[in-house]
């Protein structure tokens, strides 16, 4: 465990340093644009898995959290020209509040009912934003970035780095949860909520905690998108695509380990970015569909599950 811990922190530091170096060394902006999107999906998938993987509550409302993150940023920017970090922090707070409300829903709803409730929640929130003229309503709103701050050479580079920090933050949180008593408690309640409760697990409190953490991270991941696009409209910000892609990434990577969603997000996110600039047609959607079907049928535990199975087999072979 300890050695793993050292490796993890070294790895995280190396990752951030590499990202920081990239923003200095690479002059071509495209890697930052495309990379930003992939990083954003890593945060979403990791955050989703805290609730969906550990606790087994399938949240279809990723787009609701993402969109609220976008619009929190839009609102703060419009009302006070708030800087990026304030936008993200505020979005996290809003996400935590939404997560808290969602957590209370788990009191009465489980399984597919919970999922359907999250769809309903998404539509209610999207409609409310659509009707809110101050942030542009259905017509959308154009924003103009403030000048970039030192030490970054461009705003996109800065957003890229900020999103990478969010990735590390999300992974640290997710890893901590998995390895701590919280993770064990969530796993127990996913397996059997009544048995968990009767073994002393405060199920409601843990579920609310998972919802709050997951929601805060998803909202935070959405906040920089306002400055990334410099434009926001409800149908793009609350796009069903965020919910489905996040779910697909988590499942393809596997939710049994914190690294699963990362692997899934990188794989699917990179594939989608690549397809956008290669095949670039409706076949794009087809690939997502086929990948989803193939993975849930052939690798039900995701890539992480496949790796584990291979490893176990090899171990058995050695013995």
């Amino acid at each position, binding site marked *: 465990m300890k050695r793993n811990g050292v490796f993890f922190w070294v790895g995280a530091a190396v990752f951030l340093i590499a990202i920081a170096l990239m923003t200095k060394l690479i002059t071509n902006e495209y890697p930052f644009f495309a990379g930003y999107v992939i990083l954003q999906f890593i945060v979403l998938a990791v955050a989703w898995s805290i609730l969906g993987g550990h606790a087994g509550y*399938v949240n279809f409302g990723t787009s609701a959290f993402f969109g609220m993150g976008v619009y929190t940023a839009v609102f703060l920017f419009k009302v006070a020209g708030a800087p990026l970090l304030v936008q993200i922090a505020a979005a996290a707070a809003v996400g935590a509040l939404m997560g808290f409300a969602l957590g209370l829903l788990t009191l009465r709803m489980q399984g597919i009912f919970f999922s359907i*409730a999250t769809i309903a929640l998404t539509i209610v929130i999207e409609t409310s934003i659509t*009707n809110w003229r101050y942030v542009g309503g259905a017509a959308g709103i154009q924003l103009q970035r403030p000048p970039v701050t030192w030490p970054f050479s461009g705003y996109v580079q800065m957003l890229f780095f900020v999103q990478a920090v969010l990735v590390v933050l999300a992974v640290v949180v997710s890893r901590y949860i998995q390895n701590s008593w919280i993770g064990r408690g969530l796993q127990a309640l996913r397996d059997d909520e009544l048995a968990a409760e009767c073994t002393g697990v405060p199920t409601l409190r843990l579920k609310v905690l998972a919802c709050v953490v997951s929601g805060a991270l998803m909202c935070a991941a959405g906040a920089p998108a306002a400055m990334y696009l410099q434009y926001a409209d409800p149908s793009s910000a609350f796009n069903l695509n965020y919910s489905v892609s996040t779910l697909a990434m988590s499942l393809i990577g596997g939710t049994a380990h914190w690294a699963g969603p990362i692997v899934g997000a990188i794989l699917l996110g990179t594939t989608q970015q690549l397809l956008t600039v290669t095949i670039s047609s409706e076949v794009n959607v087809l690939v997502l569909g086929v990948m989803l079907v193939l993975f849930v049928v052939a690798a039900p535990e995701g890539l992480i599950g496949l790796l584990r199975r291979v490893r176990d087999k090899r171990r058995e072979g050695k013995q």
Partner: protein
Amino acid sequence: MFSFELLLDAVVIGVLLGCFYAAVSLGLSISFGLLDVPHVAHPAFLVLAAYAVFFLNEHYGIDPLVAGLLITPLFFLFGLLAYRLYYETFEKRGSDAGVRGIAFFFGIAFIIEVLIILQFGVDQRSVTATYVGKAWRIGDMRIPFRLIVAFMVAAALTILLTLYLSRTFMGRAIRAVAQDQEALRLMGADPIRIKQWAFGIATAVLGITGALLIIVAPVEPTLDRTYIGRTFCVVVMAGLGSMSGTLVAAIILGIAETIVLTLFGASWAPAISFAMLLGVLAVRPQGLFGRRS
């Protein structure tokens, strides 16, 4: 703007629209409500049926309702096949089919969308029939024939399915399988075969309701996405697996939507129906006419 006539009008239109919602949700009420299959591809199947009807109408001039009936046996077989695939990959392997089942059906839905685009292009399509585009006058009120057709089909389907599920041996077996698979196995029936049959029926119903879909409004390949929320909303609000409940819940939804659309801020309409769903889920998780306590 408020007037009694408008309210009455909204209620009448709402009831008819509700019947349409009921018709497109009935299949899901069986597949999800009774069989617990998280069938998010249900609306995609529905749109597929609508395109099949369009094809028959466009090329052979067949009346859409007749075309809907014609493709029903095909969709029945399609349903048998789809369930078999779902069963082999998920139910047979045991627990935790939920999330992956949903992802599986999302995948299927996307594949169907793309196949439709490749075959028919992205333009919206509609059908011609004598009852499309005309209305029935009662005094000052005019009711589109399309909606009357939807109403009649929904009523007929609800009655037929209710009778089927309560009067026939197979129907009773389907309801039994929803409640207690073990008991059924002890009685010597194969629950898998029964569920497969039921899924076949749920999909067959889509043949005729797909025709309704394209009669009521034009269709386009990604239309299924707007219907995911609506159909699940109806089925959950009704309480799982109740056919008459589905009709009533859909009508409530239709009335609420139309009243908001007609008399209050139209742009709030989607929020109203889904806020209602949230309310129902919070107060009565088993739905308005639920079978489970």
